[in-house]
């Protein structure tokens, strides 16, 4: 919440905020090999999903309070490609990410990748929201239109 208000303070009156965060779903795990896609399962990330839902609540709240208004939204899959499951695990550890997959899934991926060239791919659904900064009633915000929002 504090972050959203600080950003509001640093944005010009006509400014926009672009928020990108994952959908509250488990990312998919795939092996891509010779033009085929094998869907093996999902990344276990219950903790992340809880945090995402909390983040959405914070965004919804600042919008209800009149700090911003959503002007556009897009959904897409962010694909991350790795030569092997071990490379993905190394990446997760380096970046401090907590999502994990089962040993069985890792073994399946390694079995498939041992048969030829391929990639370990993680598919993460993302929501991108464009929010327009609104003047903040009750503050010293000099934005044009201050106080001109009925019901705010």
């Amino acid at each position: 919440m504090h972050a959203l208000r600080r950003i509001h303070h640093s944005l010009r009156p006509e400014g926009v905020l672009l928020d990108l965060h994952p959908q509250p779903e488990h990312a998919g795990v795939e092996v891509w090999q010779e033009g085929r896609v094998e869907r093996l399962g999902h990344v276990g990330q219950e903790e992340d999903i809880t945090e995402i839902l909390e983040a959405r609540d914070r965004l919804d709240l600042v919008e209800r309070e009149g700090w911003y208004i959503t002007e556009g939204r897009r959904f897409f899959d962010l694909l991350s490609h790795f030569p092997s499951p071990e490379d993905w695990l190394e990446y997760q550890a380096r970046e401090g990410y907590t999502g994990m997959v089962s040993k069985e899934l890792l073994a399946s991926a390694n079995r498939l990748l041992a048969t030829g060239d391929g990639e370990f791919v993680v598919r993460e659904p993302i929501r991108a929201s464009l929010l327009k900064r609104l003047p903040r009633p009750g503050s010293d915000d000099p934005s044009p239109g201050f106080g001109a929002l009925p019901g705010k």
Partner: protein
Amino acid sequence: MSDSIDPEGTEIEVIHELVDFSSKKVLEVGCGDGRMTRRYADRAALVLALDPNADKIERAIDSTPEPIRSKVRFRVADIADAELTPQAFEVAILSHSL
């Protein structure tokens, strides 16, 4: 390793659909290793990119190509206590950072 994330360019395509960065001053919160910053900074006038993780900021600085170095400032900082000029930016980006 950054190149293995979204090599398809889907994310930046969506971002450009939503935001016009042309000659804009941009505040990026949670820039990480600068993966996204490097993809839009060429269009912006100036970018201030923040991340609380010093290692990631070091990687971001090291991997920023020369042509955009003059317009991007990476800083180790948390939005909660970063010193920011009021009403200085036209665009803010929050990437996985709420």
